[in-house]
């Protein structure tokens, strides 16, 4: 299971990459593996405000429908337009082309609550027991 260094992770299995006050958000390799083949993704619109720990989107696989929880609060400035047509990209490349949204972070303190690679590894290995 791939868990790249340099990213922040949420307990709800999202990853966050930050650059200049903008967070790129996706779901982790572990999350896509647990969901199985993804068939549908619902994302917010550009300009929407999302709040930390509240659902901002939906990902549906043949197994289940799951909410995607916001790891940080902020305003959506870009969404991955390729996903509605080709949700399988999230399975194939969760940390790259399968990113979900870009958000202008409203409170940088939100990042403090997120996990680093080692902490997220522990969370995943505990879940897989």
């Amino acid at each position, binding site marked *: 299971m791939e868990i790249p260094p340099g990213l922040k992770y949420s307990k709800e299995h999202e990853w966050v990459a930050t650059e200049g006050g903008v967070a790129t958000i996706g779901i982790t390799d572990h999350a896509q593996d647990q969901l199985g083949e993804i068939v549908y993704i619902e994302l917010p619109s550009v300009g929407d405000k999302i709040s930390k720990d509240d659902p901002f989107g939906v990902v549906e696989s043949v197994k*289940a429908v799951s909410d995607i929880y916001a790891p940080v609060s902020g305003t959506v400035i870009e969404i991955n337009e390729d996903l509605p047509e080709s949700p*399988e990209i999230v399975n194939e490349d969760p940390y790259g082309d399968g990113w979900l949204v870009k958000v202008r972070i409203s409170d940088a303190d939100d990042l403090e609550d997120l996990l680093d690679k080692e902490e997220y590894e522990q969370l995943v290995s505990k879940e897989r027991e």
Partner: protein
Amino acid sequence: MAAVEKCEPRTESSGSRTEPLIFEESVPGRRGVDVAGGAQSIARARDLIGSELCRADLPGFPEVSEPQALRHFLRLSQLNFGQALQFYPLGSCTMKYNPVLNDEMAALPGFANLHPFTPPDLAQGALALIARLEAILAELTGMDAVSLHPAAGAQGELTGLLMIRAWHDRQGRRRHKVIIPDTAHGTNPASCTLAGFSVVVAHSERRGYLKEADVRRLLNDDVAALMVTNPNTEGIFEPEISAIAAALHQCGAQLYLDGANLNALLGVAKPGDMGADVVQLNLHKTFSTPHGGGGPGAGPVAVRNHLAPFLPVPRVVQRADGSFELDHNRPDSIGRLRSFHGNFGMMVRAYAYMLAMGGDGLALASRVAILNANYVRRRLANRFPNASAEPTLHECVLTHDLEKRTGISTIDIAKRLLDFGIHPPTIYFPLTVPGALMIEPTETEDRATLDRFVSAMEQIYDEALSAPEIVKGAPHTLALGRVDEVKAARHPILRWNPART
């Protein structure tokens, strides 16, 4: 004692059983029915209906003879899997046998031909049936008043939540949150959202039930209710339910009890005694009316007295002389929920079932349902252990190690069961159990049927180790083999289109 019958997979090849689409059987100009008077009658029909409502042509509409149409649909029906044909242990759906007597009663001309606009004075029998069925459901659930309007369980949920919202509003406070455990049916959060609430998830951890302390931690003056299924979707009775109800009431919140799994409780325990303020039931689960494609459903909702003023209108009420009328004058009501009085045919069926079973019969049914689920759990324990150590009620949720050992996943097991002539159980639900197989045999299955199911599951487990390709490629004996569910979900084709063929 009779020898236990081993369940053998079918071996018959599937190729001969496929059926073309009716569009492919079409021959231009062929007719099933010739309208008397031909073109003249068609012109007259067009005048009566209004030509703006009539299509000039219907490209691709199948043109077949009457015997062709009859044979086509009868052959399709023979490819069906269903409760009337096979063992159907679909967890949390309670696919119990639908007694033929129910259908006979619903077909009585006085019920079947009753026009929904019949004035109450000419529909006293139907109104009496509604009132009596409400009374029986109130007794079984330990609640004070019942509405039969909701057309399905999820509409019952919405009704209950709207009443809770109206009750809070009435007291001049707006509350926004509903707590839902992670084992809940997917309809629960959906109904909350539709009723204008946001959802807070309570985690049942691995023990499989809610702790009062965990609920208490989530409580504050923005919580309108807790919505919990009892027994829950792991087939476990919530042991702390009364303490949870007390904690909710202390903070001004309500207990919504989802009665989807009431089949475990009839004559044994009442939601009203657990402290529930609202309960929704499913006639199409617990009370033997048809389910799935055979519906429609019926999701009555039962409340305590303080919520009764909010029930949907109209209410069936009894006059002093014993006759029945409809009461629309209920100023606190959440309003009308659907047309007329709900799915009345289902009420007749459920009422017939209750009278045929009697109170003792219903209590016995629940006990046998629990016995059957425990029998399956115990017999499969070596290969498919139960997810929780807690006692099982009406359904067991099993898991397995095959995915780790061989790459065979739960969906493969489900597909292989079809080759044994068994409808698969609910799979991958609840989400709290990895690779879940949720099995609800119901009380209507005898021991021989359960033994055949156990035998099939044991063989599939052993096949997964010795000949995994058989399981991976299943089903082998149906008209269609393994269908591409991912492609179907990503690129659904919902309509036949002549250009595509």
